[in-house]
């Protein structure tokens, strides 16, 4: 338990966005980017960015939310295991015992890994989109968008209600996919992993997912950005003028299909944050927790 509520554990756990390997790979990519773009060095290496009040708030909030998640949010969540058991049990009751034969262990593993990755990313897209389009959810998601500067720890600047929703999404999707696969293939399923993490999620995290919340505006080019979300596209999502676009996690396909895609080349100037009159509600630590409730109450 003590290990679980230690925020430093995030650096040594491959399941975390700021696992040291992912941070290191992002630093290497950023160094190459800054070497090729000397003009960007000043901002990205400045104290003004890393010690900005918004960044300092992110650092403090990260410690709070990592402890709060373990003590309060996780115990409230239904586990993916319980969902998978329920799905498997439901299918057994409805359709009897089934065992799909004819696929090798490796084939099932690849199919399972791919299904988990794609469906998880798809559900992430839609939850993220709802967080923007449903007013009561947007009240909570504003916490994340109120960051004036982006650092890798901005990823954790999330209201507990949003954390709860993402946790539920995870349990439901992973539980559903696992339940269906267990029903069909039993124990013949496994995950193609790197250090225990879905190999696809690991690769995408390794190639700079920490740069999504940074000022390193790396674009993938017009073609790739229709399939994969680049750091620049996510930074566009954090800009005040384009807040309702580029909801994708790893894949940009969902944005493309559901008409919310904006390519990097079409946006030049980015200013992070939310409307000026709303920013004042998210400048302090306690405001990140209580402002959404206050603003929701006030709007009624």
């Amino acid at each position: 338990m003590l290990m679980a509520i230690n925020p430093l554990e995030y650096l040594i756990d491959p399941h975390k966005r700021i696992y040291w390997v992912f941070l290191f790979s992002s630093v290497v990519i950023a160094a190459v980017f800054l070497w090729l773009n000397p003009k960007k060095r000043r901002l990205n290496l400045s104290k003004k960015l890393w010690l900005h009040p918004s960044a300092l708030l992110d650092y403090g909030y990260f410690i709070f939310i990592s402890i709060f998640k373990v003590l309060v949010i996780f115990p409230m969540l239904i586990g993916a295991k319980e969902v998978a058991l329920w799905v498997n049990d439901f299918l057994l009751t409805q359709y009897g015992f089934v065992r799909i034969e004819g696929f090798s262990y490796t084939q099932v593993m690849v199919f399972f890994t791919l299904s988990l990755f794609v469906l998880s990313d798809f559900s992430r897209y839609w939850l993220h989109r709802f967080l923007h389009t449903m007013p009561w959810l947007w009240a909570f998601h504003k916490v994340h968008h109120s960051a004036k500067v982006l650092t890798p720890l901005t990823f954790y600047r999330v209201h507990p209600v949003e954390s709860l929703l993402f946790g539920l999404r995870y349990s439901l999707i992973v539980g559903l996919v696992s339940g269906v696969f267990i029903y069909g293939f039993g124990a013949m399923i496994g995950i193609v992993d790197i250090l225990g993490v879905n190999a696809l999620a690991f690769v995408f995290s390794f190639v700079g997912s920490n740069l999504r919340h940074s000022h390193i505006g790396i674009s993938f080019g017009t073609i790739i950005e229709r399939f994969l979300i680049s750091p620049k596209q996510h930074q566009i999502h954090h800009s005040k003028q384009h807040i309702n676009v580029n909801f994708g996690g790893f894949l940009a396909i969902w944005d493309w299909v559901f008409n919310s895609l904006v390519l990097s080349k079409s946006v030049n100037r980015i200013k992070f944050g939310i409307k000026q009159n709303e920013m004042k509600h998210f400048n302090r630590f306690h405001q990140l927790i209580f402002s959404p409730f206050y603003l929701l109450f006030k709007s009624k």
Partner: protein
Amino acid sequence: MKRIIISVILLFTFCVNAVDKAFFEQVIIHNIEQSIINAKQISASIKQGKTKKSQMLFVQLVSNWKKVEATYVLGDLNEDFLDTPRYIDIFHGNNEDIKAQLDLIISANDDLSYALYRHSHKTINALEYLLFTQDLSNTRVRSMALIMAKSIEHYLRNIGSAYQAHRSKFVQDEQFASAILLNALVSSTYALKEWRIGDVAGLSKKYKGHADARRAEYAISQNSVMAILSILQAHKQAIDASSHKDFGDVARKFGATKEINKTIGFLNQAIAQVEKMQEQDLLNAKGKSLYQSTNWLMQSYYLSLMNKLGFVSKVLDADGD
């Protein structure tokens, strides 16, 4: 340096495989060899026309065959052997009324090699019918029973040889071996719960409220409870054996100690219940209680399976975008 690396790899391979090999030898191979011996003995006994002895040997054959069936992983090692058990045993896999067909064959004069042309005519279920309802002193019945016993022995030998041929495939990959073994156990528990107990006791979805002792697996010879016990004993060999590293040990290695101990608890509970049961008890409260125990056993296998997939219980970082 090269030598050190090879030595380390060999040592690791030995450590990983040694115990699996023991499981393979002491459970999989041992059970199939025992059933081959039983089939051979039964042929000799039938040839001599000894009804009582043949019936007694049949019980032993059923007991060992049920153990082979409960841990049958050969189909996963070589798909050519997926259907082989169907050539030995047609319980719940065939809607034919073989009793009527066998009666017709007994009363006819056709050459038996043609008359017994169906696989179902040469199964353990057909043999049960002949040994426990017909007279072995009748030459035709005896010849039929002999053909059946020989056929069963033939397929058991095929299974035995194939296991020997695929030994390395099983022992070289512990994760794969655990997966196919767990699948066999889950599938066996489902068949046990729904078909061997639920259908008889009127507790399965198909026969809810309509108990019928004739649906028991060995209703003719009254060996259904013994067959259930053998199946549960095979599960015990697979998850709670002291002589070899079993699935229980593998599950503990994956951190599922609590789950596997729970599974073993349910298994022991079911075994204790069956040991006190008679055939007719499948229809009463004891049957209901056994159905519940096997249901818990199955749920608990699934829980162990979930634990093997540790990733499902871990909340990944996926928020904040």
